[in-house]
C-alpha cells in the first residue's frame, strides 16, 4: 500500500498562502475562523536566506500525537495517514504538545479542558465516519482521497512547491528538481 506524504520544496515556496486558503475552501464545512490546518512559515524573513515552508500535519509514520493521546483517538489508515476520531477526543491538548509541527488546533483556548475537539489536517481524507456522510463533512471536511483525488492544498499550489502523494513518487520528483538546479544545461521535467 502506498504511504501518503506531504513534501514542501522550500526553493519553490513563495509564501502565497494558496495552500492555506485551498484548505479553508475544501474543508469549509468543518473549519471555523481561527482554525488553520495548514500555514506557511517564513524563516529569515526580509534578509538573505529567506525561505518559506508550508506546514501541516505530516502524517508521521510513528506519530507522536498518537503516542501521547490519552483517548487513543488517532489511527493510521492503510494509506499511512494519521487521522483521528473527534468523538473520542477530549480536548486535552497533549497532541499539540507532542506534535513537532504544531498541527493539532483547538477551537477554544479556555482552561479546564474546554479547548473543544482537536482539528488537524486530514490529508483531505475525512475521518472515521462513513465516506461523504454529513457527519464526516461537518466534523472533518472533505474526503478527496475517497474520490481518488489528492489534498486540495497540494493540488492548488501556485508553484508546485507543495507536493502530496505516494512518498516514493514525490521524493523522486523533488530529487530530480534538486539535481537539475545544480546543473546548467539540464532539462527540467
Amino acid at each position, binding site marked *: 500500500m502506498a504511504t501518503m506524504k506531504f513534501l514542501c520544496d522550500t*526553493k*519553490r515556496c*513563495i*509564501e*502565497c*498562502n*494558496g*495552500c*492555506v*486558503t*485551498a484548505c*479553508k*475552501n*475544501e474543508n*469549509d*464545512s468543518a473549519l*471555523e*475562523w*481561527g482554525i*488553520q490546518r495548514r500555514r506557511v512559515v*517564513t524563516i529569515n*524573513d*526580509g*534578509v*538573505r536566506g*529567506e*525561505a*518559506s515552508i508550508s506546514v501541516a500535519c505530516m502524517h508521521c509514520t510513528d506519530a507522536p500525537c498518537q503516542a501521547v493521546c490519552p483517548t487513543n483517538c488517532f489511527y493510521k489508515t492503510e494509506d499511512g495517514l494519521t487521522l483521528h476520531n473527534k468523538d473520542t477526543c477530549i480536548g486535552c491538548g497533549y497532541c499539540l504538545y507532542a506534535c513537532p509541527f504544531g498541527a493539532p488546533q483547538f477551537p477554544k483556548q479556555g482552561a479546564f479542558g474546554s479547548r473543544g475537539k482537536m482539528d488537524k489536517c486530514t490529508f483531505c481524507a475525512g475521518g472515521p465516519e462513513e465516506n*461523504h456522510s*454529513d457527519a464526516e*463533512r*461537518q466534523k472533518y471536511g472533505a474526503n478527496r482521497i475517497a474520490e481518488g*483525488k489528492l489534498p*486540495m492544498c497540494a*493540488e*492548488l*499550489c*501556485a*508553484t*508546485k512547491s507543495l507536493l502530496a502523494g505516494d512518498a516514493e513518487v514525490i521524493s523522486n520528483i523533488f530529487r530530480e*528538481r534538486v539535481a*537539475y*538546479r545544480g546543473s*546548467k544545461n*539540464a*532539462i*527540467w521535467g
Partner: protein
Amino acid sequence: MKLTRKSNEAPTVAKPTLGISRRQFMKHAGITTGGIAAASLLGTGMMRRAEAKDIPHDAPIEIKRTVCSACAVGCGLYAEVQNGVWTGQEPAFDHPFNAGGHCAKGAALREHGHGEKRLKYPMKLVDGKWKKLSWDQAFNELGDKMLDIRKESGPDSLYFMGSAKFSNEGCYMYRKFAAMWGTNNVDHSARICHSTTVAGVANTWGYGAQTNSFNDIQNANAIFFIGANPAEAHPVAMQHILIAKEKNNAKIIVVDPRFSRTAAHSDLHCALRPGTDIPFIYGMLWHIFENGWEDKTFIEQRVFEMDTIREEIKKFPPKEVTHITGVSEEEVYQAAKLMAENRPGTVIWCMGGTQHHVGNANTRAYCILQLALGNMGVSGGGTNIFRGHDNVQGATDLGLLFDTLPGYYGLKTGSWKHWSNVWELDYEWVKGRFDQNEYLGRIPMNTPGIPCSRWHDGVLETPEKLAQKDRVRMAFFWGQSVNTETRQSEVRDALDKMDTVVVVDPFPTMAGVMHRRKNGVYLLPAATQFETEGSVSNSGRSQQWREKVIEPLFESKTDLEIMYRLSQKLGFDKEYTKRIAKDANDMLVIEDVTREINRGMWTIGMSGQSPERLKLHTQNWGSFSNKTLEAEGGPAKGETYGLPWPCWGTPEQKHPGTQILYNTHKHVLEGGGNFRARYGVEYQGKNLLAEGSFSKGAEIQDGYPEFSADMLKQLGWWDDLTAEEKTSAEGKNWKTDLSGGIQRVAMKHGCIPFGNAKARCIVWTFPDQVPVHREPLYTPRRDLVSKYPTYDDMQVHRLPTLYKSIQEKDSSAKYPLGLTSGRLVEYEGGGEESRSNPWLAELQQEMFVEINPSDAADRGIRNGDTVWLEGAEGGRIKIQAMVTPRVKPGVTWMPYHFAGVMHGESLENNYPEGTVPYVIGESANTALTYGYDPVTQMQETKASLCQITKA
C-alpha cells in the same frame, strides 16, 4: 433544497472592533437558494445562500470552466455546481497558464458563491439610514437626477468610474455608455495602475502591453524585476519564473526598495531609494555601453536615436548613480553584467515603476534597457509588464479611459467617425450628445476627461479652472474602490460635495461608506463575474471565455443589464444597442457585443477573436501547451491560447494570435511582427522606418509605413481585395477598414498592417523627450532637488496640476521617513471583496506599516505596537508597526488594501447592515500625497514621506 425565509430576525452581526472582525457566519441561519427566481420571490428578507454543506454529496455536478477574477495571470479553474450552488472548486491541471496552481485568492474563489457580506438589494441613504428600494425605483430616480444635471450643467458633470473587473463586453459597453451620454469623463483603475506603461511603452514601439507571455518567461536566461513583486501580486507567474530559474539557471535580479518575497528567490537584490528608477537604469546602461555589451546590429536596424540616450547616460557615471539611488556601484555593475551575459533576458515591472510622477519616463527607461540589449521580439526576452486586475488589459484595450475610444483610437474627430461607423450611428448624432462649447481652449468631445486618480479634483476645483462647463456633480463608482486613490481626505470631501453618489458593485465599497452624507447615496448590487459570462483578457493579451458559474446572488444584476436598463431610462437604448440582439428577457446577447468589439478593434487586432473561437479555446484548455501556449493538435491546432492580440483580420481569416510582439523570426500569419510605424516615416529628416530588418516572409524587405488603401494601390496589391472589400476599403486604412481587407492583403504579402518602423528612444510629444530623473515631489534628499527638479506646474487636459509648487516646500525635516506602498498576496485592489472573504481575511487582520528596526528603535517602537503614521500632507492613520529588515533604514512600506477606518475612527456604522467586511483598517492612501504623471495623470504612491510615532 430548502427555501426558508429568515423571519424578522436580523442577522446578529458581531460588530468588528477596530481592525479585527470576527467570523460572523450564521451557521444555523435560514437557507435560501442562490437563484434569482427565489430572490425576487422572497423580497426583502435577509436571504441566505444555500451553503455547499447543505447540498447532498451525490447531487448531480455541473462543471463550469471559469477564470480567476483576481490578477491578470488569468488562471483557469473548474467550478463544480450542484443544485445551482457552487459546491466545489477543482484545479485545472490542463489549463495552459496555471496548470492548476492558484495563490491564496484563487484558491479561495469559491467563497464568491457565498457572498455573505455582499449588497443584497438596491439601497439608498435617506436621512442617514439605509433604505431598500426596488430596481425600477432606483433606475427612475437616478435617471431623473442624471437628466436634471445634464440640463443644468451639461453631460460632463457626470462621472463614470468603471472597472477592470468588468468582462471585455462590460468594459466596451460602459465606454460606449459614456459616449452615448456625451462625455469623456470615464476612466478606471488602469489610470492608477499601468497608464504610464501604456503611454510610455506604446510611444516607444507601438503597443503599451506586455510583449511576451507568462509562459514565455520559461525561456528567459535572465529575469529583471523592477518595482515588481510577483510572489505576492502575481504568484502563479512565479511558476514560470521558477521553472526558468531551474531549467535555464536563469539569473534573477530584483530591484526594489524592499526585500520582497520575490527578492528571496533572487540572485541579486538592489534596494534602490524609491523614485530613482531612471538613474538606476541609466547606471546599468552606462556599464553596458562602457563595456560594449549593447546589441549593435539590433540598435542600428530597429532603434531610433539611441545616440541621444548615450549622451544622456554620460551624466550618470557609477558614483553619481550610487549617490542618487543608494545602491552600491558593485551591485549596479552586477545587474548590468548579469543582464548582458545571460540573454535573452526579460524585464518585468509593475506598480513600483509606474506609480510615480515620472512614471511614463520610468517605463521608457526600462524599454530602452531592453532595446540596448537587443532583447525585444525574442522568446525569453521582452518587457513582461504584469497587469494587476483580471481584466485590466481588456478594460484598457476597450478604452475604459479618459483619453481614448476603444482600441486606442484616441478622441480625434476621425476616431469618433470610425466608431460611429462601427456602431452604425450617424456621427452628427453622436457629436450632438456632447457639450458643443469650448472651455479653456478645449472641446469636450475631443479632450480627455477627468482621470480616475483625480475625479475628486473635478468635484472640488473651482469650475473656472476646469476645461468643462461645470464641476462633477454626480458620479458612478462602478466596480472601483476609491480607497485606492491617494489624498483620501480630499476624496471624502468630494464625496460629501457631490449631488449624488452611485455605487454599483457587489460590495458597498468606500464611495458608499466613507463620506459624511445623510442623503443622496445609492448602492446598486452588481453581480460578480462568476454570475455572468463573457471574455476576459489576461496580461499577456490572451482572451479567455469565462463561463457563468451561478446565477446572480440575491437581487444583484449583471453589469450589462444595469447599463442597458439605465440607457432605457435615459432614452438612448436604441442607439446604444443598435447592432446587438436581445433575448426573450430583453437582455443583450453577449456574443453580439463581442462581435461588435471585433468589428471595431482593428488597431490592436482584437478583431479576429470571435466568441466562437474564444469558446473553442476555453473548451480545449488541455490541447494548448503549458510551455509554448500553442495547440499542437485538436480543433484549435496551430493557434496560440486565447488568441493574444494582434489576432489580425476577421475571425474567418483564422489568425493564430501573437504571443510575442515584434518578433521578426516569425511570419505575420504565424504571429510574427516588428515595431509599429506609428509616428510617420521620418522625424527632423531622420528615417523612422526599420533598416534591413523585417518579419519573416515579408515581401517588402525593409521598413515600410502603415497600410492604407492608397498604399495598396501604389504597391499594386489593390486587386488582391475582393469587390466587397474594395468598397469598404476605399479611402480607409488598416485601422478603419471594417472589412479587414487591407489587413488581409498586407498579411498575404507577409507584411504587418501597421508598418515596420524603429522603436523610439525619444518621444518628442512628451514633456521629457528622453527619460529624465526628477526627484519625487516629497523627497528625503533635498540636496538633489536643485540638480534634479520636478516640472513646473501645468494644466493637464481638464485639470491644473501642481509640481514645483509642492516640491519647493521642504517637509523632509518633519517627515523624515520615505514611504512606499504595495500589495499583499491575500488581498486585491481596494480589498473590499477580499476582506469580505473570511478565508482570506483571517490571514491578514491588521493594517500595518513595515519599518526598519533602527528607525523603530529611534522611536521606541516595538513589533506589533500601535503607531500613528502621518503623511506629508497631514493625513494621519493609526496602524500596527511591523518591525522588519525587509525595508532599509529610512524607508517604510504599507499595503494599500485596507479601508473602513479613517484617521483612527472606524467607519463600520456607515455600512448597510451585514456588509461590514471581516477585516477593516486604515487606508494607506489617507497618508499618501499629491503627485501626478504629466502624461497620464498616474498618481504617486511609491515615493512619499511620513513620520511615525507610537500611539
